Structure formats: structure tokens, C-alpha cells
């Protein structure tokens, strides 16, 4: 399956309407928001806010190819801000139980275990791991998306994966 970056590049620089940009990126945006928050309703709120902010200024964009970069970064920042401001990590952890509104997946138990494991990471660490593996970004690109030094990102991803292995009961 091509990454969102590949799909964006494939789309080229042709004139793109607001609706087209929305439709091209909404599924990837929701997936990212969901994995960062573990909560579908919260992910929808964050993704909607991110679209509104970035699309609201989209006429300023010189390159449509930059759209996903800005949208992704905005989603990550909104998620981090959410957790920072409301200090809901504890509540988030407590909420990790089967969600009737959650999307049907091939293996709900596997999904719940992964989400619960991700929930043990700090928000920024979670974002680093999700961007690194969901989007197959290089560590440099993750650093770019998070606005953090590459060394910090390497450390966040490495420690995050160690923690996930521990939570999922896997050997190194």
C-alpha cells in the first residue's frame, strides 16, 4: 500500500480544490488522529480542527504538496496540546476498554492491546512511534514533523519501542 507521502507526490502539483484535498487526506488524517489519541470521537474533533485551520489558510499555500506536511504536523500538535492542556493521560488510560463506536477490525483484541500499549507512552513519544511506523517516515522526517532534534526522536522511538515490547510481552 503506498504511503500517504507517495500518494501526495503522485497527485502532483495540479490545481486542487479544497474538497479534493480534504478527500485525499481525510482517511489518513483520521487514522493518525486515532492512533495518537486512541479515541475515535477525540480523533474526529482534532482532525476536523486541523482541516479547518489548514484549509482555512490554504489559499496561501504555494505548493499543494506541502498540504499533508502541514496537516500532519497540525494534527500532532493538536493532539499533544490536548494531552498537555487537559492532563487527561490518566483518564485516557482508564478509557482503554472496548469502544462500541470504534471501527471494526480484523482482530479487536490485538487492536485493543496495541492501543493500550501505545497509551503508556508519553504523547510526543507516541507521536514519534506512530509517525515512524505508520507513515514509514525516516527519523529525520519525524524530527521535522515534531520540530524536535533527530537525536531526541531516535531516543523517543527507541525507548518507545522498548516500552511497547514490554507492554506487549515480546522479546527484544
Amino acid at each position, binding site marked *: *500500500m503506498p504511503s500517504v507521502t507517495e500518494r501526495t507526490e503522485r497527485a502532483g502539483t495540479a490545481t486542487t480544490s*479544497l*474538497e479534493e484535498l*480534504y*478527500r485525499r487526506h*481525510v*482517511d489518513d488524517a*483520521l*487514522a*493518525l488522529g*486515532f*492512533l495518537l489519541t486512541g479515541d*475515535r470521537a477525540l*480523533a*474526529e474533533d482534532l*482532525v*476536523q480542527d*486541523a*482541516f*479547518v*485551520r*489548514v*484549509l*482555512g*489558510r*490554504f*489559499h*496561501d*499555500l*504555494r*505548493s499543494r*504538496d*506541502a498540504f499533508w*506536511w*502541514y496537516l500532519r*504536523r*497540525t494534527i500532532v*500538535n*493538536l493532539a499533544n*496540546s490536548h494531552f498537555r*492542556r487537559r492532563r487527561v493521560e490518566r483518564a485516557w488510560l482508564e478509557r482503554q476498554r472496548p469502544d462500541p463506536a470504534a*471501527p471494526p*477490525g*480484523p*482482530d479487536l483484541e*490485538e*487492536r485493543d492491546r*496495541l*492501543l493500550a500499549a501505545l497509551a503508556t507512552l508519553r504523547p510526543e513519544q507516541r507521536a514519534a512511534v*506512530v509517525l515512524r*511506523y*505508520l507513515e*514509514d517516515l525516516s527519523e*529525520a522526517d519525524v*524530527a*521535522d514533523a515534531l*520540530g*524536535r532534534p533527530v537525536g531526541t526522536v531516535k531516543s523517543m522511538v527507541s525507548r518507545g*519501542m522498548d516500552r511497547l*515490547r514490554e507492554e506487549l510481552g515480546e522479546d527484544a
Partner: protein
Amino acid sequence: MPNLETRMPDLLRRAAAGLRADEAFERRTLRRARRRRARNASAAALAAIALAAGLALGARTVLTAGLTPADGANGPLPTSSVSPTPSPGSPVDEGLPTPVRQTRDAILAAIEARDFGALETLIDPDRFAYNFSDGHDPVPEWRRDPAPLEALAAILRMPFATREGTPELGTIYVWPSLVDADLTNLTDEERAMLTELGISEREVRRMLEAFGAYVGPRTGIAQDGTWVFSTLGGD
């Protein structure tokens, strides 16, 4: 079994599988985006801001307003504490009119003291634009999360640039002078400023690709000392 790193992409995709935005979500999102876009385009202050933001003069491509990635998307804010206000006669103040300098100094003093009341008195909601479209009174937001003020203080201690605003506003003094920077040929001083703001070379390349100019944190004070805009990349 393959190791976790190898399986992670698939695990993550499966965990998020099935998420689809329905039509109601699309309608709500696009309606809000269109409203935001219209507000951006119609705000009277944007005409002045577009000039002041350093994006519309000379040989540069004309943009209607500066765009800043939302919510901290310009990179990390400086974590250092507020350093001293430039002293009168400081090289960075050369050519700065007294009313402008007084406003700049008052903003810096208020930030240093975390005096939100003082910041409120420095903002005229009828003449001030925050992040171009996110309102005219950022103080309540700064009270909740004062982190953006560190970036504001940092840019106000840097050299400034000038732009001609509307006839009503006259000349606008814009911080930092990076708004004049040729991003393809940065000076050592400009590189140092970007570093202080936590803006990486990759981010500079993104700005160049997307906008052709610096679109990081910036703020402007009109020649009469009116603080007219601030955009920090933090909503």
C-alpha cells in the same frame, strides 16, 4: 515471528482500519473550513498584515496573508528565560521610533513579569489580529498556556524590518528581520536567529518550498505604537 519493528506498520494500519469519515463529518469540516477561509480573506486587518508579514513586497510572490502552521507547527519554542530588553541605543533599535520602542519594551516587560493585565492593555481588539484568523484577544489563551510568549519575546529582541501598511497605520515595524531574509542565501546572523527560534534547516526549506519566505513567529507594531498583529504558530 518477525520483530516488532517489522510488524509495527501493519499493526498500526490494522488498529486504525475501518475509520472512515461520513458525509456529515465532511459537510461539517468543509463548512467550518470555508467559513474560516472567508474570515481570513475578509478581515480588514489582513491587508496590512500581508504587507507587514514580509510576503508581499518587492519581487516576492504576492500572498494575501502569511500562513503559519497551526498550533506550534513552527517548531519548538525557545525554552530559555526572557533575556534583557535591548537597551536604548542598542544597534537592534537603530531607526526605531520612540512610540514603537515603548510598545516593544512594554510587551517585553509584561512578558517577563507574566503580567497578563499589562498585555491586555497593550492590545486594542479593534486593531489587533492574532494568528491572522484566530481572534483579536489572545490574552485568555496566553493565560492558559504562556509558552508562545517566549517566542514573542525572542523575536522582539531581534532586529526588525519595516513595511508600509495601510494609510491609516503608516509604517509597520515587523519583528524579526527574518521576514526580509533570502532563505536561499541566509547570513550568519539570520542563521543564528533561526537557531534561537528553534527553526531547523528542514523547516526553512519547507517555508521556502511552500511560501518562498520566512513564515515563522512574527509580530508588528505600527509607527504610532499600536501593536497590530502577532502570529506565533501557536493557537
